[in-house]
């Protein structure tokens, strides 16, 4: 399988990438790790006439401590995120979700910016970032702006990015000390996407849930937060019983797909089970 022909440009800097996007407009696509875009191009499901390669922008590949948050450059690869001590210390959920992507070869190429911009509701890192209330930094024709993860995913493979926007970094808030987390990914074959995935954060005050955040992978056309589960938990004891009760709210507001991997009904049942497991693992 060979992609359709295209013109190839190499961005020498972030500014140059934005400029090239301006010149080529809607016909151009950014190429980062290529692990979403190239498979689509090989199947001819995507046929951009120009590829702008941003893979060499090493100044966008970093993970750094920025005070109350950790900042991850858009070109940072999954293998580096999964192995980051800084992230493991302050927001282990993100490192864990990145380590669940595909296989080692995929993680050596896939970038966090590409994973977000692709907007696939079955992907793992977007849900983790939504669950921790990350903020995304975007460079566009009008300069720089920030978009909360909660406003970024607009529809199936659609995001708040315009055709001339470049995602430059992600800001991950540091978790309050003692916040437990878990990412539960359910799939049948080793390197597959999640049939359903659940990200959970549980912040406790003595034995009581002060705040819980729960995100769902592959349960709608976008990554989702589960408001039903979150509000059912607030102020409740962090007990197995309370978790099981809250988990029953997992299907609320979802619209899961039916496909060859699982029916919508199967996903609905699975979501409650995985939410309960994720909550229990988060406080274990």
């Amino acid at each position, binding site marked *: 399988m*060979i992609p359709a022909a295209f013109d190839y440009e190499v961005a020498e800097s972030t500014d140059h990438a934005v400029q090239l996007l301006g010149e080529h407009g809607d016909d151009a696509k950014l190429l980062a790790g*290529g692990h979403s875009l190239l498979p689509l191009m090989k199947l001819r499901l995507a046929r951009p006439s120009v590829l702008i*390669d941003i893979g060499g922008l090493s100044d966008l590949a970093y993970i750094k401590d920025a005070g109350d948050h950790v900042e991850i450059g858009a070109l940072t690869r999954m293998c580096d995120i999964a192995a980051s001590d800084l992230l493991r210390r302050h927001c282990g959920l993100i490192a864990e979700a990145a380590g669940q992507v595909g296989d080692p070869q995929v993680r*050596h190429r896939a970038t966090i910016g590409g994973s977000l911009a692709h907007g696939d509701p079955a992907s793992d890192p977007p849900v983790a970032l939504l669950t921790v209330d990350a903020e995304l930094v975007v460079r566009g024709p009008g300069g720089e702006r920030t978009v909360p993860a909660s406003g970024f995913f607009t529809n199936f493979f659609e995001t708040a990015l315009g055709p001339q926007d470049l995602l430059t970094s992600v800001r991950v808030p540091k978790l309050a000390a003692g916040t437990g987390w878990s990412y539960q990914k359910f799939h049948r074959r080793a390197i597959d996407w999640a049939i359903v995935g659940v990200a959970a954060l549980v912040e406790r005050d003595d034995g009581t849930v002060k705040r819980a955040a729960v995100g769902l992978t592959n349960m709608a056309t976008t990554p989702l937060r589960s408001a039903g589960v979150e509000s059912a938990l607030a102020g409740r004891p962090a007990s197995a019983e309370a978790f099981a009760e809250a988990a029953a709210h997992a299907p609320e507001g979802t619209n899961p797909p039916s496909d060859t991997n699982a029916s919508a009904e199967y996903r609905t049942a699975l979501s409650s089970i995985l939410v309960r497991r994720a909550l229990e693992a988060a406080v274990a």
Partner: protein
Amino acid sequence: MRQISVTVNGTRREADVEPRQLLVYFLRETLGLTGTNVGCDTSTCGSCTVLLDGQSVKSCTMLAVQADGHEVTTIEAMATNGELHPIQRAFHEHHGLQCGYCTPGMIMAADSLIREAAGPLSEAEVRIGLEGNLCRCTGYQNIVQAVMAASQEMQGGVKARAGKGGGS
């Protein structure tokens, strides 16, 4: 056409390529290095695995132009002066192949996995670490044993050293 310069198995290779040419076809057809196989062509099987700057990647899911300025290592460079690489020797000794189609990819993936690890790999680490490589023949058991043996040989001294300084 675009001119690229890629260091392949230690030798700088310059070529004019079509931007849409995949790295695996650059290796196989432009350079004649047919040791790297194409199994699925859909990023699933890992038989096309090569090293890019020392790390395993699936060369069916990369453009040759993306390798411009980088180093690529293929199975052809593993044996030196007629001596098998420790991973190749371990596959031979542990009977880690039958038809051999998956083997170049397995060996390149294993090399990256072994060098990234802090010490000798456990069976579970090998199985998870090779999840991107499929084999239709062996049932994996002997591949896992071969990679564990090679990891012991290549990294056997590492854990003891790391233990002292507490380094990673």
